[in-house]
C-alpha cells in the first residue's frame, strides 16, 4: 500500500535527533522524575493540613442499622467525622449514571464501600478514630454470581441489568460448514498503578474549594464533585496533581468528594492517601467476563457467522460499564470480516467490587475469546492459524459487525505478516532463573516445553456512540515562547512531550511552556483514556498552534506590507519566499498572539436496537506473537519473548511509542499468567501487592517490535493513531495461546493458573 512506512526497531534511537515530530524527544518531566523532585499527588503538603481517612464496609451487602461516631469525635486531634447525611449535595455520583453513593446511607453494596470519613492531625489519629466508629450492620446475603443477577432481587433502585446490547448483523439464517464452539472466562484484573489514590483539598474563602488530585479527566470530576457538594461548578477548582499511573482506574471519583467535604467542614487543607489495600477497594477493576462463542466458516476458512453471548460483571455500581459492554460487543468478533453475527452483550450489577475502565476497555476480554476461537477453527479446518487470520482480516472498506464500514486505515494484514515474519531472538535458557519458576529453582529443563502462538486484535480509538468528544487547548505566543494551556491529564503517557513536539513543529519555537492542567484555565480536554489524547488533545494543541501561526503570518504580512501567501515560518523566522524579509519570532511576538480552540473528531452515532450503526471513529490493529516456556509438571510459565506489530498511523515519538508497547504488553502478560483480583463471597482475598501479583523484571520478556505500521490516518493530527491500548489487548491472548500450543490444553480462562495446566482445568 502506498504511503505505508514500516519503522523497525533501529528507528528507536535512545538519543534525540531534534525537537520535532517523529523524534525521540526526551520527556520534559523526566529530570524531576528521576531526581525525586516531581510532585505526585501523594507528595502534596501544606503547613496547616489535616489527614483524612475512610471507614469502609467489611460486608459486600448489608443494611446499616446505626452509626455511632460519639467515641471517635472525642479523640484528641480528630477534627471531623462525616457521614452520608453530611454530604451537602447529591448523595450519588457516577460517570454514566449517578448511582454510586458518596458515603453509604441505608445500605452498603460492596466490600470496601465508604461509610464514614475522618479528618485528624496525624494518620495514626485517623486510624484510631476510624477504629472508634461503631457501625451496626444487618448483613444481607450478597449477590455474587453475575449469571443470577437478572433474576435476583434488585440490589439497587436502578435494577441489576446495567445494559444489554443484542447485535444482529447480516443474514441470521446462514450456517457455516464448519463450526467451533467454546466458553471462555477472564478474571478480574486490577490496574495496579503504583501511585496510590491521593490528593489534597483546600477550602477557599467564601465557600468554594480547591482540589489537587491525580485523575484522568479533571472536568468530568469537577462536575461530579460540584454536584455532590451542592456547589456551582465554578466554585470547585481542580488542578492535576502528579499522577502515578492510571490505566483506567482514575476515571471514576474516589476520594474527591470526601476530601472536599472534610476541607470545607474543618476549614483546613486535608490530605488523603490510600494504602495499597484501600486502593484495591477504592477504584474500579477490569470486568470479569464469561463468554460463549460459536464460529461458522466455510471449508476454505472464510468466516460466515459468529454467535456470541457475553456476560460482564459490573459489580455494585455502573461506572463505565455501559461503554465497556458496547466495546466488548462491537469488537467481539475480532478484526475479521464477519458477514453474519448474533452477539448479545450483557453487563449486570452484583455485590462484587465495581468494575469500569481499564486499558483495552472490553476488547481485552473478547480478544482472548475470539483468538482462542480462531485457533480452534484453524484446528477444525486443518488450516494454518496465520493463514486463517489473513484470509479474514479486515481492511479499509470492510464492514464491522456493527455494519460500519472502515473508512480510515486498517492494516490488519500488515500487522500479521510483519509480526510472524520477524525472526525470533529467543534462545533456550539454562540458568534456572530464566526458566519457569525463576528464583524458586523449581524447573528442570527436561520438564519444560516451549510454545508459540499469534494473536490479533483491534479496538476503537476515542469515545463512541455519539458522545460529544472534544478537547480544548490554547496557545499563546509571546516573545518567541509558546505557552500551551490544555487540561489533558498527563498520567505517564507522555502528552507533555508531545506538546513540545507539536508546538515546535507548527511554530518553530524552541521554548514551549505547558501550563498546569486545571479546570480554571481552560475547558475540558476529555479523558486520558480510550487511546484518545494524542489525537484529541494533540489535535487541539496542533489546531491552536496553527491558528497562532496564521495570525502571526497575517500580522507580519500586514506590518511589512507583503503578501500573506509569500510568507513562511521557518527555523524561528518569518521570512518571505523571495528572501528579502526576515523577521525573528521574538520580535514578531513582543505583542502576544493567542488562540483558543476546541477540537472534535468526526461525529459518531448511537447503536440501533440491532447494535448497528457508525458508532466509532477510528480503529487500531495489533498483533502479538508469544513464545513461552511451560513447566508442565508444576504448571509454571515463563514468557520468553513477545514480538509485536502495531498500526500506529504515524510515529510521533518513537521511544514513547515503544514505551507504550512494552508497558501495555506487560499488563497483558500479567493478565495471562498471574493477575487476578480473587473474590470469595464478594470479598477480595488478595488486596495487596504481596498477593495480587504483577510482573517483575524476571517475568516480563523483551518485547521485539517487528513493525510500527505507519499509514497516516485521515483526520488524525499528523496521521497518528493512539497507541496505548492495543498492546494490552493482543498480548494476553497471544500468551494464553502459546501456553495452549505448549501444553495441548484448552485453557479457556485467564489468568492461566498453575493448577489449570497441571490438572487441565480452568473450564469456564
Amino acid at each position, binding site marked *: 500500500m502506498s504511503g505505508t512506512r514500516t519503522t523497525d526497531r533501529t528507528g528507536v534511537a535512545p538519543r534525540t535527533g531534534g525537537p520535532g515530530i517523529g523524534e525521540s524527544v526526551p520527556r520534559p518531566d523526566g529530570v524531576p522524575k528521576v531526581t525525586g523532585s516531581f510532585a505526585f499527588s501523594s507528595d502534596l503538603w501544606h503547613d496547616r493540613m489535616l489527614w483524612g481517612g475512610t471507614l469502609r464496609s467489611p460486608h459486600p451487602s448489608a443494611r446499616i442499622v446505626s452509626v455511632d461516631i460519639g467515641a471517635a469525635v472525642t479523640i484528641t486531634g480528630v477534627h471531623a467525622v462525616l457521614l452520608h447525611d453530611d454530604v451537602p449535595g447529591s448523595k450519588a455520583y457516577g460517570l454514566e449514571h449517578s448511582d454510586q453513593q458518596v458515603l453509604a446511607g441505608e445500605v452498603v453494596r460492596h466490600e470496601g464501600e465508604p461509610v464514614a470519613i475522618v479528618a485528624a492531625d496525624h494518620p495514626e489519629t485517623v486510624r484510631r478514630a476510624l477504629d472508634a466508629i461503631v457501625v451496626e450492620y444487618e448483613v444481607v446475603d450478597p449477590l455474587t454470581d453475575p449469571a443470577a443477577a437478572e433474576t435476583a432481587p434488585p440490589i439497587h433502585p436502578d435494577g441489576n441489568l446495567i445494559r444489554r446490547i443484542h447485535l444482529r448483523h447480516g443474514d441470521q439464517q446462514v450456517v457455516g460448514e464448519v463450526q467451533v464452539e467454546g466458553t471462555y472466562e477472564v478474571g478480574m484484573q486490577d490496574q495496579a498503578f503504583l501511585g496510590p489514590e491521593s490528593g489534597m483539598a483546600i477550602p477557599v474563602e467564601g465557600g468554594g474549594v480547591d482540589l489537587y488530585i491525580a485523575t484522568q479527566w479533571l472536568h468530568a470530576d469537577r462536575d461530579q464533585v460540584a454536584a455532590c457538594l451542592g456547589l456551582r461548578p465554578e466554585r470547585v477548582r481542580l488542578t492535576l496533581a502528579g499522577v502515578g499511573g492510571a490505566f483506567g482506574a482514575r476515571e471514576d471519583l474516589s476520594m474527591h468528594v470526601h476530601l472536599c467535604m472534610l476541607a470545607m467542614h474543618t476549614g483546613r487543607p486535608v490530605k488523603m492517601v490510600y494504602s495499597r489495600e484501600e486502593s484495591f477497594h477504592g477504584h474500579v477493576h477490569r470486568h470479569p467476563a464469561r463468554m460463549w462463542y460459536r464460529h461458522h466458516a466455510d471449508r476454505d476458512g472464510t468466516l460466515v457467522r459468529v454467535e456470541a453471548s457475553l456476560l460482564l460483571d459490573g459489580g455494585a455500581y455502573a461506572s463505565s460499564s455501559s461503554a465497556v459492554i458496547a466495546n466488548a460487543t462491537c469488537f467481539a468478533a475480532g478484526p475479521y470480516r464477519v458477514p453474519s453475527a448474533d452477539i448479545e452483550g450483557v453487563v449486570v450489577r452484583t455485590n462484587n467490587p465495581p468494575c469500569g475502565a481499564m486499558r483495552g476497555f472490553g476488547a481485552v476480554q473478547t480478544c482472548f475469546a475470539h483468538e482462542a476461537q480462531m485457533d480452534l477453527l484453524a484446528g477444525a479446518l486443518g488450516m494454518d492459524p496465520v493463514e486463517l487470520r489473513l484470509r479474514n482480516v479486515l481492511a479499509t472498506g470492510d464492514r464491522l459487525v456493527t455494519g460500519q464500514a472502515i473508512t480510515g486505515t486498517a492494516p490488519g494484514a500488515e500487522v500479521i505478516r510483519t509480526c510472524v515474519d520477524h525472526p525470533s531472538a529467543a534462545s533456550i535458557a539454562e540458568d534456572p532463573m530464566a526458566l519457569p519458576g525463576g*528464583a524458586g*529453582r523449581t524447573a528442570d529443563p527436561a520438564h519444560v516445553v516451549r510454545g508459540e502462538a499469534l494473536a490479533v486484535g483491534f479496538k476503537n480509538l476515542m469515545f463512541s456512540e455519539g458522545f460529544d468528544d472534544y478537547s480544548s487547548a490554547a496557545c499563546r505566543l509571546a516573545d518567541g515562547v509558546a505557552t500551551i494551556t490544555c487540561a489533558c491529564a498527563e498520567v505517564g503517557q507522555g502528552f507533555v512531550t508531545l506538546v513540545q513536539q507539536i508546538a515546535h513543529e507548527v511554530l518553530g519555537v524552541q521554548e514551549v511552556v505547558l501550563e498546569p492542567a486545571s479546570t480554571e484555565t481552560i475547558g475540558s480536554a476529555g479523558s486520558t483514556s480510550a487511546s484518545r489524547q494524542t489525537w484529541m488533545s494533540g489535535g487541539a494543541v496542533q489546531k491552536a498552534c496553527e491558528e497562532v501561526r496564521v495570525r502571526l503570518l497575517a500580522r507580519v504580512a500586514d506590518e511589512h506590507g507583503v503578501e500573506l501567501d509569500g510568507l513562511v515560518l521557518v527555523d524561528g523566522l518569518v521570512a518571505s519566499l523571495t528572501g528579502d524579509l526576515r523577521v525573528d519570532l521574538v520580535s514578531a511576538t513582543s505583542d502576544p498572539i493567542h488562540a483558543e480552540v476546541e477540537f472534535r473528531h468526526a461525529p459518531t452515532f448511537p447503536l440501533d436496537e440491532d447494535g448497528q450503526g457508525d458508532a466509532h471513529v477510528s480503529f487500531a490493529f495489533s498483533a502479538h506473537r508469544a513464545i513461552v516456556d511451560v513447566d508442565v509438571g508444576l504448571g509454571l510459565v515463563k514468557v520468553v519473548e513477545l514480538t509485536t506489530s502495531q498500526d500506529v498511523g504515524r510515529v510521533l515519538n518513537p521511544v514513547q511509542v515503544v514505551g507504550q508497547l512494552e508497558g501495555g504488553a506487560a499488563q497483558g502478560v500479567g493478565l495471562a*499468567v498471574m493477575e487476578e483480583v480473587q473474590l470469595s463471597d464478594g470479598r477480595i482475598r488478595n488486596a495487596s501487592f504481596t498477593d495480587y501479583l504483577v510482573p517483575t523484571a524476571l*517475568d516480563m520478556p523483551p518485547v521485539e517490535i517487528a513493525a510500527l505500521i505507519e499509514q497516516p490516518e485521515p483526520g488524525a493530527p499528523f496521521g497518528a493513531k493512539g497507541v496505548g491500548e492495543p498492546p494490552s489487548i493482543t498480548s494476553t491472548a497471544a500468551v494464553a495461546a502459546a501456553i495452549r500450543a505448549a501444553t495441548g490444553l484448552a485453557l479457556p480462562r485467564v489468568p492461566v493458573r498453575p493448577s489449570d495446566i*497441571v490438572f487441565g482445568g480452568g473450564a469456564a
Partner: protein
Amino acid sequence: MTIATSLEDACCALASHPDALVLAGGTDLMVAVNRGDLPVHHVVAIGRVPELRGWRREGDHVRLGAALTYTDLLQPDLAVLQPALAQAARSVGSPQIRNTGTLGGNVATGSPAGDTIPVLAALDAVLELRSASGTREMRLDEFVTGVKRTALEGGELIEAIRVPVLDGPQEFCKVGTRNAMVISVVSLALVVDRSGRTVRVGLGSVAASPLRATEAEAYIGGHLDWDGGRPPSAEVVDRFTELVVGATSPIDDHRGSARYRRHAVGVLAGRALARAVGAA
C-alpha cells in the same frame, strides 16, 4: 526504643520491657506496623548486635547469629557449608528484603511459608534462645507451634541457630506464581547426609508448622545405593514422592489449592531427589 549494641544490652532492655517488640530486619514486623495491626509501644532493635550478626563453624555444626540477613547467608564461604540455606535465602523476596530480613526473624515469625523453615527443619536446626535470666535450647519443631505462633516468651530473643554441616548434596525449591518476589505456594528442602546415610526432607506451606516427611526419609534412606551411587529406580522415586505427599496436610487459600499443593510437593520431591542423587 532501644537500639541494642550488645547481646547483654538487648536482654536487659527486654527484661525491663517484656512486652516490647523485638525488631530485627523489620520485613515482617513493619508490614504489620504499617497496616496498624500491631500497636507499637516499646521496641528493642537487635539488628545491629554484633553477636547476632556473625556466624562460625563449631566442629560439625555452624552456629548462625539470628540477625544474619538473607544476603549474609549468600556469602560464598557460608553458602558452601549450607547450600540449601543459601538457595532458600536467594528465593526470599527481593534484594531489598534480603538485605534486611533475617534468619532469626524468619523463624520468629513462624509462618508456614517462611522460606528458610523447610531447610532448618530438614537440618534439625537447634535454636538458642536467650533472655536476661539465661539461655535455653529448642528444636525448630518445638519452637514453631502453629501458624505464626511460637514458644518465644516475653523478654526472650533468638540468639543463634545451629545447623549441622552435612556431607552430601542439598536442594531447596519453591513454587510461586511469579518468577521472583513471591510467597511460596509450596516449598521443599532435601538434604543428603552421606555419613549418616540419611536423606532429610523439610516441607513448607503444606502444614501449619514446620514439617518433615519422616516416612519418606526412612524409605529413601533405606533404598539408596549409598556405596555404589546408582540412582534410585523409578519405582523407588515414585514411592518416595508418594510418601512425601502423604506427610502433608495443605489447605486451600488464595495462593493455591490443597490439591495443587499436594501435587506440586510431590513434583518437587522427585526433582530434588533427582538433582541430589541422580535419576535412573
